[in-house]
């Protein structure tokens, strides 16, 4: 059995009287691609928010590397190895692509003012290292030529790539992607699949929320299905595609519920 | 996002305006320290209402006024009072705030039914307060505030036992033209009624007397930077410079002028009285000549007696004229009552107008018809870190 990196137990989020997420268990294992699917409003994004520290759970616990982290802030979760992209892209639009990545890259550097004033060897070395790392990631994502452009000058698809690169820059162990393929052409979707696989090949676990069934069925090792905030199924793509509850949820089962 | 930023910028603009207004006003003051010894309704007492700033910025001076009044009242009461009645001093803090000043004066007049009123530290507060006391013809004494307008309002119940701005400027000009070699002066003035009024009086008297004012520069209350004004004045090469303002800013003017390498004769007015200029400007104040109303000098029996009594009672030597002038004011009222042999306001006012050559701590006092005393100012010079009197009127 591969190691469990993230373990969420009985996680619930309540907005007013409404359960956005209700008693959900999620395990993310090392090196796997975990798909999360469900109809609109099933609680997928809220679950991702809980896993990245943007939303405090009303109940339940989250463990990363066997430590409880339910009360950590978003930046601490980033530091613990949880990277994320958003359905609605969140980048610092006023900066260039490379500047966006450099901010993320500083998470692991230690540099004081004295280093800068003295222009020490260490300063040059780390600056060079994170710049190299950023360029390498941009090449990987196929946007190396856009490094000096401002985010606001990029297309939607390019911004999604930058966001993934930004997340990778913080050296995540687990990368959460929230509908990375939304609005992509079939050809772009294929490129995305290759990209996700290459990320996994670097030893990073991927949690993928995606509407495109073709993408998710071909990529995911395991799939969790949410409906009305609750987990209704958990298994391999094959098991899921044959699951009674899932089929009912997706084929207008809400009418009978 | 951008729109929000613009809104913030607009907001800041508004807030800056508000803050400028706050800045222009006196800062809010602390708690009311006035003794609340309210009227007991006894007919055996003469009640003197005292109003001045006893908390906040000018409290230091208001407190000295209060001490002067207390000392005079105690001495009179020890001798059995006036007409067999003891004096009761009712003290009120006006925080140097005109609306507060009117409020406490109104209370003194209607609730405490005072027989006489003494106040305040600021000319503007005094002006509004005497408007109230004059309605009932209550004898009102102004020992400290020096704006000309106070005794120009046709009130028959207002007395000032200290020289006003105009008299001060006139006597200063006469002194400079007669005793000093400087005929070409520049003025740096506080941009207020006080500073502008004094500087205009000085300029007109000085020019009439044959002197020349090469330029007049202004600064705001609370200003800290005077290099621009001083650089301009320096370019005019005057023989001396007159500071028409108070010591808080004036001390910085002196220091910054010294830093600019300016060696010149400095002149100023009553705002520089007392020990504050030496403390605040240090060596930069050396040589300055300024008008003075009173200094606790040795060799004058009347002054020595007052200074010793003050020291015994309050532990400190009186600084400048605040306590002496208020001390004289209380005694002047007592003199008026003694002469009138009654507490009737009208009769006391008549008696006060007829006072001539009363010998107070500050010198000889006679009230003119408008209530302004024909008193003279002294001249003092700061030498080696101490104030010395260089001219004292007969």
């Amino acid at each position, binding site marked *: 059995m591969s190691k469990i990196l993230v373990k969420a137990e009985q996680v619930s989020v309540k907005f007013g009287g409404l359960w956005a997420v209700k008693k959900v268990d999620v395990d993310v294992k090392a090196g796997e691609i975990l798909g999360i699917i469900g109809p609109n409003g099933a609680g997928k994004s809220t679950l991702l928010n809980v896993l990245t520290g943007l939303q405090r759970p009303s109940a339940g616990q989250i463990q990363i590397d066997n430590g409880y982290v339910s009360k950590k*802030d*978003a*930046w601490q979760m980033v530091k613990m190895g949880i990277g*994320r992209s958003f359905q609605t892209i969140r*980048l*610092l*639009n*006023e900066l260039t692509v490379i500047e966006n990545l450099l*901010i*993320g890259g*500083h*998470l692991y550097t*230690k*540099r004081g*003012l004295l280093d*800068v*004033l003295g222009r020490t060897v260490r300063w040059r070395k780390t600056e060079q290292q994170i710049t190299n790392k950023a360029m390498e990631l941009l090449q990987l994502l196929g946007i190396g030529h856009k490094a000096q452009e401002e985010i606001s000058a990029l297309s939607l698809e390019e911004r999604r790539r930058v966001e993934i690169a930004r*997340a990778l820059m*913080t050296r995540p162990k687990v990368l959460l992607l929230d509908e990375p393929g939304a609005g992509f052409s079939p050809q772009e979707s294929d490129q995305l699949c290759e990209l996700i696989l290459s990320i996994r090949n670097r030893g990073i676990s991927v949690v993928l929320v995606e509407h495109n069934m073709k993408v998710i069925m071909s990529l995911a090792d395991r799939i969790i299905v949410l409906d009305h905030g609750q987990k209704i199924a958990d298994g391999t793509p094959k098991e899921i595609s044959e699951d009674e509850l899932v089929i009912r949820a997706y084929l207008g089962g809400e009418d009978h519920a | *996002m*951008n729109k929000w*930023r613009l809104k*913030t*910028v*607009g*907001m*800041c603009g508004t*807030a800056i305006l508000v*803050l*400028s207004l706050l*800045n222009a006003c006196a*800062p*809010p003051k*602390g708690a009311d320290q006035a003794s609340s010894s309210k009227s007991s309704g006894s007919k055996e007492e003469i009640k003197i209402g005292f109003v001045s700033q006893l908390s*906040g*910025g000018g*409290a*230091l001076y208001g407190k000295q006024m209060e001490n002067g009044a207390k000392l005079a009242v105690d001495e009179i009461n020890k001798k059995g009072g006036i007409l067999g009645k003891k004096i009761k001093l009712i003290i009120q803090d006006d925080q140097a705030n005109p609306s507060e000043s009117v409020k406490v004066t109104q209370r003194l007049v209607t609730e405490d039914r005072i027989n006489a009123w003494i106040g305040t530290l600021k000319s503007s507060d005094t002006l509004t307060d005497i408007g109230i006391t004059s309605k009932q013809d209550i004898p009102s004494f102004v020992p400290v505030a020096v704006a000309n307008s106070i005794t120009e309002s046709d009130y028959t119940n207002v007395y000032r036992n200290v020289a006003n701005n105009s008299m001060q400027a006139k006597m200063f000009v006469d002194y400079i033209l007669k005793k000093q070699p400087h005929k070409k002066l520049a003025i740096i003035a506080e941009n207020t009624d006080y500073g502008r009024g004094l500087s205009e009086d000085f300029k007109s008297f000085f020019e009439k007397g044959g002197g020349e004012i090469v330029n007049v*520069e*202004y*600064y*705001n209350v*609370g*200003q*800290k*930077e005077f*290099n*621009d004004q001083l*650089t*301009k004045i320096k*370019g005019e090469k005057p023989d001396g410079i007159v500071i028409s303002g108070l010591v*808080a800013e004036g*001390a*910085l003017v002196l220091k910054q002028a*010294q*830093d*600019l*390498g300016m060696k010149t004769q400095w002149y100023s007015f009553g705002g520089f009285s007392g020990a504050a200029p030496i403390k*605040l400007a*240090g060596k930069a104040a050396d040589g300055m000549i300024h008008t003075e109303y009173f200094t606790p000098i040795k060799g004058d029996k009347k002054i020595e007696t007052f200074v010793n009594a003050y020291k015994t009672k309050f532990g400190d030597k009186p600084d400048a004229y605040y306590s002496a002038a208020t001390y004289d004011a209380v005694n002047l009222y007592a003199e008026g009552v003694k002469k009138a042999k009654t507490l009737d306001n009208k009769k006391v006012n008549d008696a006060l107008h007829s006072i001539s050559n009363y010998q107070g701590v500050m010198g000889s006092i006679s009230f003119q018809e408008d209530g302004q005393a024909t008193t003279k100012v002294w001249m003092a010079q700061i030498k080696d870190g101490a104030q010395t009197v260089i001219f004292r009127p007969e």
Partner: protein
Amino acid sequence: MVEFAQTLVNGLVLGALYSLVALGLTLIYGVMGLANFAQGEFAMIGGFSAFFLVQEGVSYPLAVVIGFAVAGIIGLLVHLLAFYPLRQSNHINMMLSSLGVSLFLVNLAQYLFSPNPQVVKSPLSGESFNLGGIFISQQRVLIVVISFILCLATFLLLKHTKFGRSVQAASLDPDTATLYGVPTKRISFMTFILGVALTGIAGALLAPVYNVYPTMGISLTLKAFVVVVLGGMGNVSGAIAGGVIVGLIESFAGGYISTGFQDAIVFTVLFVVLILKPQGILTKVQGEKV
């Protein structure tokens, strides 16, 4: 000619001082969105701590350094009590809170230290350089030198360090910055402390020239706001350049137009800028900050 040169020097010295105070103000605005009306009061705190330390026999240079620390520590307390609880609230509440802090600190100082001005002695007091008729006091030279060093150090700190990049990210979008691993709350704390401590050191430096008294900060806050609005809210190089510009405008307005309308002229320039270029004269495109 000498008069012109002297006016220029006066303006530059004043500008250096304004830059230092405005730098703190703009940093805090950038990261916290807080228009801090209590900024000048930290100069008062720096000034008073220098006063008491020098009185106790501490050497002036050390007193300046401690003034920096004292302003920082009081800044931490103020942040905890007056601003941190309002972090979820809107920016107008924060601004009002800062006005309250300003009044509170002024009144507290009046209560504790009396409203009277106090003299701080520096070893440089009363000494001037004479450069062919142009005089500049040594204390003012010190103000210029230290202000220049601190502005440069802050600028480099922001441009070239992890802290600087974090501040940049947090000032652009505090929520998004957390996704880059930026501890926004901690950065906001550190920026506030740095911002007020810079102003504290300004207060300790100007104390020997201007004396110290409880209300000394109010006019300083006002000038710093003019500088910051002129240079672009949250724009660091704008604050530094803006300080020098305002210093020169003030000096030349006093020297060549009228000393009675010096402030009026500075504010007129401000309002013209607000009308023509509300994002500040030194902000090229929207959002070029920190």
